[in-house]
């Protein structure tokens, strides 16, 4: 088929930020399906809650301090996360490196805290349906947290190598965006796991 050139796209940039970038939409897609996974797990929790006359079953509610400490750290983490985001948009490599290191450390601290949280659930996964669903939901979010931490650590290392090209700053902003989702996902889960058993 004959072709007629009607426009030239040669002057376009080779990467973009946010909705102009492909990976950002990929992250959106994964957030949608992971968010749906959390919603389904929450639905399962509430279903079991509804069909049982006593809740929690054969256990006291989880100790509040690990989950609450996590909430505080998650909310505070938005500050260095946004700092990293702005530095990445300015393509300020030294500040991006600092931001990513801080975010990696926050992720590690949260994972350690998560270990304490499992230990303070006051139930085992095999005690009852209550224990099972609590461990499942916490396990899902822990996987979520661990994979994002892995991503952040790899990106951090990458930014200290010759691969810290301009378009990697777009990857950094996508990582920032995804972390906000990790934070946002935790808030309803915290309310569900730590406060619903106290109703």
């Amino acid at each position, binding site marked *: 088929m004959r072709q007629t050139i009607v426009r*030239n796209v040669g002057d376009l*940039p*080779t990467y973009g930020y946010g909705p102009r970038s492909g990976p950002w939409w*990929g992250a959106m897609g994964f957030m949608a399906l992971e968010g749906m996974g959390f919603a389904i797990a929450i639905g399962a929790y509430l279903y079991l809650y509804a069909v049982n006359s006593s809740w929690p079953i054969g256990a006291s509610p989880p100790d509040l301090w690990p989950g609450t400490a996590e909430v505080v750290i998650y909310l505070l983490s938005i500050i260095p996360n946004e700092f990293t985001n702005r530095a990445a948009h300015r393509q300020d490599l030294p500040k991006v490196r600092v931001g990513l290191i801080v975010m990696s450390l926050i992720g590690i601290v949260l994972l350690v805290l998560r270990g304490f949280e499992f230990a303070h659930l006051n139930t085992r*996964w095999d*005690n009852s349906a209550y224990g099972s669903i609590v461990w499942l939901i916490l396990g899902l979010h822990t996987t979520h947290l661990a994979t994002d931490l892995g991503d952040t650590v*790899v990106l951090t290392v990458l930014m200290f190598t010759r691969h810290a090209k301009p*378009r990697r700053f777009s990857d950094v902003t996508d990582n920032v965006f995804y972390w906000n989702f990790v934070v946002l996902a935790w808030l309803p889960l915290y309310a569900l796991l730590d406060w619903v058993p106290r109703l």
Partner: protein
Amino acid sequence: MSVTADQRELRDDALNGLQLSTRLDSLWRTPSGFLGALMSVDHKVVGRRYIVTAFVFLLLGGVLAILMRIQLAGPEQTFLSPDKYNQIFTMHGSTMMFLFAVPVMEAFAVYLVPLMVGTRNIAFPRLNAFSYWMFLFGGCFLWISFALNVGPDVGWFAYVPLSSLQYTPTKRPDVWAQMITFTEVAALAVAVEIVVTVFKLRAPGMTLDRIPLFVWAMLVTAFLVMFAMPSIMVASTSLILDRLVNTRFYDSSSGGHPLLWQHLFWFFGHPEVYIIFIPGTGMVSAILATFARRPVVGYPVVILSLIATGFLSFGLWVHHMFVTGLPQLGAGLFTASSMLIAVPSGLQIFCWLATLWDGRPVYRTPLLFVIGFIVIFVMGGLSGVMVASVPIDTQVHDTYFVVAHFHYVLIGGAIFPLIGAVYYWFPKITGRMLGERLGRWNFWLAFVGFNIAFFPMHILGLIGMPRRVYTYTADMDWAHLNLLSSGGALIFALSFALLLVNVIRSLRSGALAGDNPWDASTLEWATSSPPPPQNFDRIPVVKHREPLWLDGESLPVAAGLSVDRREVLLTSLAEAEPQTREASPEPSIWPLLTALATTVFFIGSIFTPWAVLWGTPPMAVALIGWFWPAGSREDEE
């Protein structure tokens, strides 16, 4: 902020004709040799593999169906033992639903959507390759388990408590549950790729109201996958945890609830029907427009119907549970929504009939299959409205009436359009035409055989024959109808044998297709058959809904993409205005290695929970290898 490109790189506006084609061909080609084949990230290569693998699973699932029909052809037969029958109907359902119907629709999307939206590759090509390997390994895992006599035997729905450790203490349900995880990972990956491809990789000018209807259908399907499949993943994960580490999700003595399984399963399972059916409607729209020689009537109506069907499909799952003792108000609501979904489906049917009515139909094989689809699907839809009603469902639940209904909607609604699509797009994929005479025989055998096989099942169900029984006694008066049904099944199977013969013959000596043998209107026909590795030498610019019909002999294109590195053009969501020129990943072995590591992780975890610990590091290493930019041209500068 914007960064202008390095002016030193060579662009496609500096080359012309053969020089440009050759350069792009070498840039986008899959590396040669065995290792190169394993590294391929070309959506056409992956899509072809997906299609062929899914059809192999169709063949295997079809053989199982024939075995069941042989067993049921007469009363009190001993061709299959009850245990073997349980395994076979479980494998048939699982294979057809998880290894054929959903994957084959996504496979067509993987192959066609990038071509139809005018781009050079799918979004996230490595994820695409990974998804295929996961699908392949999951399917092989299930079938090897079956061959080793550890295949599942608890139905494709694996209801608890039958599938719990207490009642099935073997590994069979574990195999089923883990196969689900494999195939869902694959399906979810493809869904994200399709959404991003349609949102961001459309050709300039392909606004939302110029997207081909098949692409719209696949976009809606991808969203259904993304929102339905997490439910079955949560369900299968919790089932396997109950079986392997003694969780209590479904154990009623510890606060668990067996009906939770049905809610989770059918919250996925009913949208699943539409995940299979909606792509079929997209295929119908594409084929109808081409063979009616006019655009589909009511383009916006069809799109809104697709979206409405997608939304409503999430409000139906409880109609699978009408006899479980749910509150009557809930049953009433779900009856209403189950009947309501007939409305958007009906709207589409009327749009297609109007297209045929107002067009100049050319009755080639693809159109015959579409007409077969309309007839059979409408019949299936009518029995669907019947079982949406609680009183009728209460009577026919778990009888052959339901078996007849869902085979009418699934085979009518998906397989007939799919076979039509095979005849329609085979020339594009292979460069050769399928035989028309064999095609007509194929259609009539399929249409007649299908109806002889499945229509009697309505009657069998109404006179009380239950599903999932391996035999029946002679005094039940079911023998004649079962014999008729089995005969029909053999004729139906013969139609697939004809299709296979047609494909093999055409691959060897079929007539050459040319670029656009059907004089179709969409962009996949604007490139050669089969398409070159780069799909298009220059990215098309879309000015109409039917570009190849309205642009005449000269296709408007955009120039300026790099010919030094793989590049795709990203455009804005609504107006498809060019935004960026992003790099597209090179071939890589890491998706395969990641899939292998994940497979070891999944299968290992069936036998020991510790596999989660020792299975994680290889996956992490493989993922880092996948994402590390070594070898990328941009990073090697």
